[in-house]
């Protein structure tokens, strides 16, 4: 399991760079992860990340885009604005969760 260091945060990641231990995540690391994928976190981003982490804690699975939208109350269109191009993967990465595996 690779270990990588981002702005003084030493984290365990998979081969692609997604965190493998959600407990290593905190609000400060979120800022660093967001920066890696070209995002500046706002409260809107934070609200989505909070839902993602809570849902993962309860179900042990990263929510898909559809679930993230339904659960956070943020419309799909907004999620594409907040996390452009590849919203489901980007939000999972910034939330310190594995890549989502669901199809829809």
């Amino acid at each position: 399991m690779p270990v990588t260091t981002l702005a003084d945060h030493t984290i365990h990641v998979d081969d692609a760079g997604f965190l493998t231990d959600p407990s290593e995540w905190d609000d400060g690391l979120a800022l660093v992860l967001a920066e890696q994928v070209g995002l500046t976190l706002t409260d809107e981003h934070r609200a989505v990340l909070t839902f993602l982490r809570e849902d993962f804690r309860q179900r042990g699975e990263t929510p898909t885009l559809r679930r993230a939208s339904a659960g956070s109350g943020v419309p799909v269109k907004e999620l594409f604005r907040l996390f452009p191009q590849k919203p489901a993967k980007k939000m999972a990465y910034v939330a310190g969760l594995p890549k989502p595996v669901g199809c829809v």
Partner: protein
Amino acid sequence: MTSTETATAIVPHFGTDDAPGRKLAIICSKGNLDMAYPGLILANAALGEGVETHLFFTFWGLDMITRATMGDLKFTMLGNTATHMPQGLGGLPGMTAMATSRLKKAIAELDVPDVPEFLEQIVASGGHLWACRLSADMNHLTLADLDEDVEGIISASDFIEKTDGAQLLFI
């Protein structure tokens, strides 16, 4: 757990900086409930990966975007050997309704939306819906008969022009 220290940070590559403008064109030609889903699922997946996606609804596929039918597509056992049931059974009264409601239930249990809601999600994700001119004319349908998210009724050649350079799926 074995650990390896790496000099450069490992960060996922989302390919947004050098996106080559990948495009996908999906032609939906079937109006059965089970054959509506492959196109919708693939379109949704492509959009989630940042791929520009266009769907062209032609022949029976037009049912997927026609207001009167889009929420009422059906699944039949008839002619579908993959149900592994005797074909004669499929012809009994009520069997198509039963097979349809079972499939709908199975889809809903997986938290996959029904056809109208799925199209809404695809459009919210930036997907484009186009209706086939010939199919619309054959069925005497105008834009008013179609889902409000359909951008236009266009000819096959216009669709080919719009999707210049796209990868193409015919379903």
